[in-house]
């Protein structure tokens, strides 16, 4: 009997939830704000779907009803990707240890 590929994806999904559970509990509370901004950035990997959607049309009709939604989603996701990673970087750069000489 063949297993539906959906079951494989479901397995990945369930296991990832567990990974997420343990990884996030180990995040230090002082970094919870960067955690939120970086999860924000990575969830914008949804741009993958947006790219497929916007490249779906043929050569002579770039803008079709479905690709326009794709393009809009690309803009939204791109704001998030760049904004999310950069603001996380900016925050993390501020976390410094005590200077020894002081």
């Amino acid at each position, binding site marked *: 009997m063949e297993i539906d590929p959906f079951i494989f*994806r479901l397995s*990945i*999904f369930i296991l*990832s*939830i567990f990974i*997420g*559970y343990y*990884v*996030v509990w*180990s*995040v*230090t*509370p*002082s*970094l*919870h*704000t*960067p*955690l*939120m*901004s*970086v*999860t*924000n*950035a*990575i*969830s*914008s*990997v*949804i*741009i*993958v*779907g947006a790219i497929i*959607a*916007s*490249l779906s049309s043929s050569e002579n009709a*770039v803008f079709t009803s479905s*690709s326009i*939604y794709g*393009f809009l989603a*690309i*803009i*939204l*996701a*791109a*704001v*998030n*990707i760049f*904004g*999310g*990673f*950069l*603001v996380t970087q*900016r925050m*993390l*750069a*501020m976390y*410094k*240890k*005590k200077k020894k000489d002081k």
Partner: protein
Amino acid sequence: MSANLSAILYLVSGVLFILALRGLSSPETSRQGNLFGIIGMIIAISVTFLSVGNFSSGFVYVLIFLAIGGSIGAFIAYKIPMTAMPELVAGFHSLVGLAAVFVAISAFINPEAFNLGTPGNIKLASLIEMAIGAAVGAITFSGSIIAFLKLQGIMSGAPITFKGQHLLNALLLISIFILTYYLCSAQSSRLFWILIAISFLIGFLIIIPIGGADMPVVISMLNSYSGWAAAGIGFTLENTALIITGALVGSSGAILSYIMCKGMNRSFFNVILGGWGGSEQSTNNKNKEQRPVKSGNADDAAFLMKNASSVIIVPGYGMAVAQAQHALREMVDTLKKNGIKVSYAIHPVAGRMPGHMNVLLAEANVPYDEVFELEEINNDFANADVAFVIGANDVTNPVAKTDPQSPIYGMPVLDVEKCKSVLFVKRSLSPGYAGIDNDLFYRENTLMLFADAKKMTEDITKNL
């Protein structure tokens, strides 16, 4: 690019995202973690381009729109003040939600592009996944917009409640399931639009009854929703990177909501059903008899601190509002020069989002190893000479430990009153967001400093 190879590369980028979160377990590894995240994203995007393999004029537009969105994002990331992080994160959540909705719509209109069948004859499983992705995405979008407006102060933070609210929400939620069921058999685009419209409405309705003070929970919850929306779309697109990320973000947001609820000793449902705080404030004030408080000025505060050997600072949202974090650091520097030991105590729900105070202190160049969480530092109050409470209120209220009648009874609080003396910077005696009078104000060892947090801190520094 072969389907197997791209599937493996998507898996790689999923793993890199896991490492990105793993890096956040300590500030030293966090920057490297962020880099992993960026690499994962670059891999995911490049693989998508290569596997679609369509480098026609559409590709140019993709790059153009990517650049437009990217520059807007980069601009915001550099300009945003650290005090506005909660608003920024709420705003970003709404974008993820809306992007999920758009991708789902696009897949519904043109399923061939995604290998999901033909319009009107979409695979059943894909249709369900699409509906879930779109519905959760829409809820995330409208919910985050409301959260953003409340945080920005454009909308009042007071909870908006009306009769039959919970019934209405429940009915709408049930209607989503019914619509999904009919959508699967009829495949009608009209049903799909109605589904999205109702989801937008639900997002709006579930956030309006939640008070501005519960925002840490709301933001975490919306964080979680944005993850589940991404996962739903991931199933539709059969994309591993998206499924892994969705699960990670979903559980991350859920854990943060749990931590925030625990920090307030409230159940998740209690917060979601809303309607707490804000309104009781006025009635509470009237019934209160005037109790004596000791108030002092910057000179008194400076005198107390100069003669102390250890000082614990308790910052709260008021510090963020007054932008007092830099002035505070200067004061602490002066104290340290006088050989006084200074540490910071942070309550889990201080501020408007998880970890908000830590970021603000980090911005003001406070080394992170001087900043402690509630459990780490709570025993030290008894041995400290001075507690300097700046902009925090309810999280220091001893009533939470003593009065079972109090709405905040059982909430973990900082044992500030155990210090030899407490300096409490506040503009007036008004209660905090919970609408409860703070017993600490009237204690023998408390000295109230009535002033703007920033100005008071600066004055104290001058007097030291």
